[in-house]
């Protein structure tokens, strides 16, 4: 099993190394840039507010980066198999769920690089910057949250990407049906908010996508 994992990891590295390298650089740079020149001990309360606003605006890049990494790594994990119509994968001598786990695991191992880069970048940024009084740096919490976000994004897109064109069609069909129901309900003056309900279920805590919402603050009160 170790040899199989190494083989799968190698192929996945070859397919996604550009994504991993660029993602790692971005993940390292964002925390550093978010505090660049902003944190000085002589700042007063008003400047601290400016710092928080700056950190908050940079913070919106973390979920975006997590989503982009999850999406691109998931696509890279399955694209060659899709091109070969999965014949090679299906004729390998192991249960299909094991093959899927190998691919999933290899992708997540590679995503460890940008996750580590966020942790290192955030630690470095908070150690080198002078945080104004009353504010705290949360590099570990930020890195843990980024890890969860990357994991969720990768898992969701991996599952979708693993499917056939038919699966993608079904997902799009469900989305289209929801939109249709909402439009029809609007025309018929029925008090139905499908989008609101979907948002409550998926995005608001403790929904599976809640990790992407809210403020991503390296420095906060």
């Amino acid at each position, binding site marked *: 099993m170790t040899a199989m994992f*190494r*083989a799968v990891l190698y192929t996945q590295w070859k397919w996604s190394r550009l994504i991993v390298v660029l993602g790692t650089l971005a993940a390292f740079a964002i925390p550093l840039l978010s505090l660049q020149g902003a944190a000085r001990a002589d700042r007063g309360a008003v400047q601290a507010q400016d710092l928080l606003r700056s950190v908050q605006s940079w913070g919106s890049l973390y979920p975006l980066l997590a989503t982009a990494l999850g999406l691109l790594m998931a696509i890279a994990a399955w694209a060659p198999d899709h091109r*070969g119509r999965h014949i090679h994968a299906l*004729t390998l*001598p*192991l249960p299909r769920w094991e093959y899927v786990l190998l691919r999933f695991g290899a992708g997540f191992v590679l995503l460890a690089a940008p996750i580590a880069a966020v942790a290192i970048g955030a630690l470095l940024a908070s150690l080198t910057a002078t945080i104004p009084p009353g504010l705290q740096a949360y590099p570990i919490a930020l890195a843990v949250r980024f890890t969860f976000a990357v994991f969720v994004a990768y898992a969701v897109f991996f599952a979708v990407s693993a499917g056939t064109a038919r699966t993608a069609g079904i997902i799009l069909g469900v989305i289209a049906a929801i939109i249709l129901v909402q439009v029809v309900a609007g025309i018929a003056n029925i008090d139905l908010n499908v989008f609101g309900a979907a948002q409550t279920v998926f995005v608001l805590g403790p929904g599976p996508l809640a990790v992407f919402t809210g403020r991503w603050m390296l420095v906060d009160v």
Partner: protein
Amino acid sequence: MTDAIHIERLHYRVGNAFEIKDLDLHVPAGSIYGFLGPNGSGKTTTIRLVLGLLRPLGGRITVLGSPMPERHAKVLARVGYVPEQPHLDVTLTVRELIDFQAAFYPRWDRGRAEELVERFELDGARLFGRLSKGQKAKLMILLALAQCGDLLVLDEPTDGLDPVVRRDILSALVTYVSERGATIFISSHLVHELERVCDWVAVMDDGRLITESPMEKLKHGTKRLVVSGAPAEIGNPPFRMLSRESSNGAGESWVVGDWEPEMTSYIENLGGSVRDVIDLDLEDGFVELLRSFRKVRQ
């Protein structure tokens, strides 16, 4: 002799367009088994069912003694497969593909892989996508042989290749069988090619099996007879009547299967006489079998 592949009453359907129905196949262990049929006859679908890539709607498939697709992981560890179309990732090099494959097969023979890389003159550093059609076919054969399976399933492995590459591949296959006593199940519509290497043959058309027999029996039992004076109705003959046509006043031309020389007496007892018995090669026999099968189905 046990069967490397045993199929009973296999049923599979794709929409309303194509159906495999009541297919029985028995591939003896240690044989080189040719699976003949025109394009679209169901050869590739049957192979995919055998390998567990598709799930049958009915019937039973046993490969190397294990039911498929239930035990596909165990079975596939002992089966080398070369699909009709190159299926490997175009961005990996020859060496990377060999290493990838080696990791999955416990019986992988590195020595054989290296020997075949040299014999087939493959460049290990070249990307699969940059290989010629012949080189791709050779690499896929190499991967199937180096995993040291007990069964090789080859789906039109030499289709569209030049004669030199075809000969290299067939020679490697024959060497493998003689060294390991493995079974080869090879599908093709290139009749002459199978005639040279196979000891069993099955013919399929429109999802149905037309015949399955030892190659010698099919080759030597399919004849064109020139017959005169036979009645229009001849009951149940001991041979298979594949076609019967009048031949410009010079009697009739019959194409028969399962023919034995002593069967001339059967025709003579009916009041006819056999004026000539002409050997048909496998391709002629194949064409007559298809023609007769399609006529009956119409």
